[in-house]
């Protein structure tokens, strides 16, 4: 029985890393109806910015919570700039083109970043400095918790709440929802559509950057192709929860993490990656709006 609960804890901890990536994914989709395949690569860039900045400041030798917060901030700012550039250079020129063009461009941007990453950082795996090491293990009735993963879980819940607040309680959020509802009408109402879309991308990319640092801290082996699989998994999680829905993304990601843990534990470990895509196909066939999606009503 202890093993079963340990599997649950493991599943939730993997799920919360997916959730961090899925949040940005789902938000960009919610506003723009654009599946930003490059999101996983922005996540990878976040991890590398985190690695290089903590090496530069020597945080690996002097781990502290402040070091973690500092590199989180750096990675988020760096990724926000990347997100801005990607949107400005790759997606904005295609604003009036059919959706399929933008989708293919997104795949192109994703591949471009993967291989530029290999060129720039080298494709061998790098060690992510341990800038923050909470001491000891936490155990509860024989079930072990990794303190870092508890922190990641809490951070993803907090970020979800912050996103919800931004989207539903601020002027920027209202503008985002207006743009999401109708671009042209929004701009006729005096909303600076392009600026709002840029903000959306920067916000989503900053979230991916934060995810990169946190995942790098838990699994301290980072490489330029590390964003591909988590990116796809986060996409599945977002679809599972109802793409465009922030709460749905987190619930979907946790569900996916749990499902993977159980498949590995009780069926076959090699089936882990296939499972995500079986879920994707089933959801698209039977409930295309996802667990939380209701057509166009609760769209962010």
């Amino acid at each position, binding site marked *: 029985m202890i*093993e079963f609960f*340990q*599997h649950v804890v*493991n*599943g939730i*901890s*993997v799920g919360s890393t997916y959730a961090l990536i899925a949040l940005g994914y789902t938000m960009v989709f919610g506003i723009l109806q654009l599946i930003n395949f490059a999101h996983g690569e922005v996540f990878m860039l976040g991890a590398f910015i985190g690695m290089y900045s903590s090496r530069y400041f020597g945080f690996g030798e002097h781990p502290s919570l402040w070091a973690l917060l500092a590199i989180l901030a750096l990675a988020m700012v760096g990724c926000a700039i990347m997100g801005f550039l990607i949107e400005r250079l790759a997606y904005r020129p295609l604003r009036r083109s059919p959706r399929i063009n933008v989708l293919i461009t997104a795949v192109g941007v994703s591949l471009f970043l993967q291989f530029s990453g*290999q060129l720039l950082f*080298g*494709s*061998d*795996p790098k*060690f992510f400095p*341990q800038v923050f090491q909470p001491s000891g*293990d936490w155990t509860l009735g024989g079930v*072990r918790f*990794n303190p870092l993963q508890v922190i990641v879980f809490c951070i993803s819940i907090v970020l979800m709440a912050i996103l919800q607040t931004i989207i539903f309680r601020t002027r920027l959020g209202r503008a985002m929802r207006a743009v999401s509802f109708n671009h042209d009408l929004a701009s006729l109402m005096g909303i600076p559509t392009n600026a709002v879309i840029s903000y959306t991308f920067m916000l989503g990319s900053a979230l991916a950057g934060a995810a990169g640092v946190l995942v790098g801290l838990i*699994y*301290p*082996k980072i*490489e330029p192709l*590390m964003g591909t*699989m988590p990116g796809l998994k986060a996409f599945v999680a977002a679809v599972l929860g109802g793409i465009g829905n922030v709460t749905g993304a987190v619930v979907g990601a946790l569900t996916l993490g749990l499902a*993977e*843990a159980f498949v*590995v*534990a009780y069926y*076959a*470990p*090699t089936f*882990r*990656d296939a499972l995500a895509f079986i879920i994707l196909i089933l959801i698209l066939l039977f409930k295309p709006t996802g667990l939380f999606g209701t057509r166009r009503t609760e769209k962010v």
Partner: protein
Amino acid sequence: MKISPVLNTFTRVVIATTLSLSLAACTKKSNNASQDATQNAAGDTILVGEVGSMTGSEGTFGTSTHNGIDLAFKQINAKGGVKGKKLALISMDDQGKPEEAATAVTKLITQNKVAAILGEVASSRSLAMAPIAQQYKIPMVTPSSTNPKVTEQGDYIFRVCFIDPFQGTVMAKFAAQNLKLKRVAILRDVKNDYSVGLADFFTATFTQLGGTVVEDQAYSSGDTDFKTQLTNIKGKNPEALMVPGYYTEVGLIARQAREAGIKVPLLGGDGWDSPKLTEIGGVAMNGSFFSNHYSQEDKAPNVQTFVEDYKKIHGVAPDGLAAMGYDAAMVLVDAMNRSPDLASGNIRAALAATKDYPGVTGRITINEKRDAVKSAVVLNIDNGQFKYQTTINP
């Protein structure tokens, strides 16, 4: 206006003829490749091709091996080369991909016309290269591909390392006889021939010696989370955990094993041999053991000279793969010296006759299966350093 269709037909005929001629030339060229290689060797340099993963996730495998080969060639050339000719190395990077390795070896043989091939480190890539080298009858010496299937590809394929059964057997003997263990769990990489081979032979020998494999879990290379498998393993309370994977995943596995509360030593093979192992794994790797081809702490004079020379050129101490690269190059040179001429058939025969060659990774004898028969060392990871533990003989 009337003339254009005629011209068109004429152009078409010309193009067709040129094409078919050039195609014929191509086929002829490839048939004669091995002959050309021998002719090329008649010049004043002997070209040797090297294929390795200089970049990619196992980048340190390729670069270490390359540094070893490079040192061997520099030393031989400084002493006047082979049969009065200088050795020249043409290196190709396969980025760790089998298909790139196959392309690279084809290019080396058909375009560069090399006399012999050195490489690859990983068995999966050597397996992609071997049939091509065999087809053109160019001798290929792999420094460190330990999967048995590699040399089964044909009589031109050799290796200077031991094979998986032996490494699996060595670790099983070490666990049962030196560490006196009874219960061991296995976590194998099912995507990797090397890992599966080691795990299977470990299981066979370990059960024969009276031990039990209490749990056999699997992962796929590229995974980053192993906690679920480790939770299952922890439930069986093993006395050691055999992880015959590559250093890329083993470091993470070690960390997560310690987090999951598995405190027992980890066991592995030569795929652990990289400085990245302890960089990624950190303190979690301490107290673990792995089998390897050589130890730089070996007091034999030829090993110490090699370590000194290598440090002088490359600035760091050679790892096992560098030593294997060095030995592969030296065994090839030794065979070229003993061969009456540099025809590929004669080099092959000389390689097959290699007996008791005193390499830095042990005395190398090539058996009838073109595998090296030699001893293995077991290393202990102590405070991030690889320390010599014991030598296990075949």
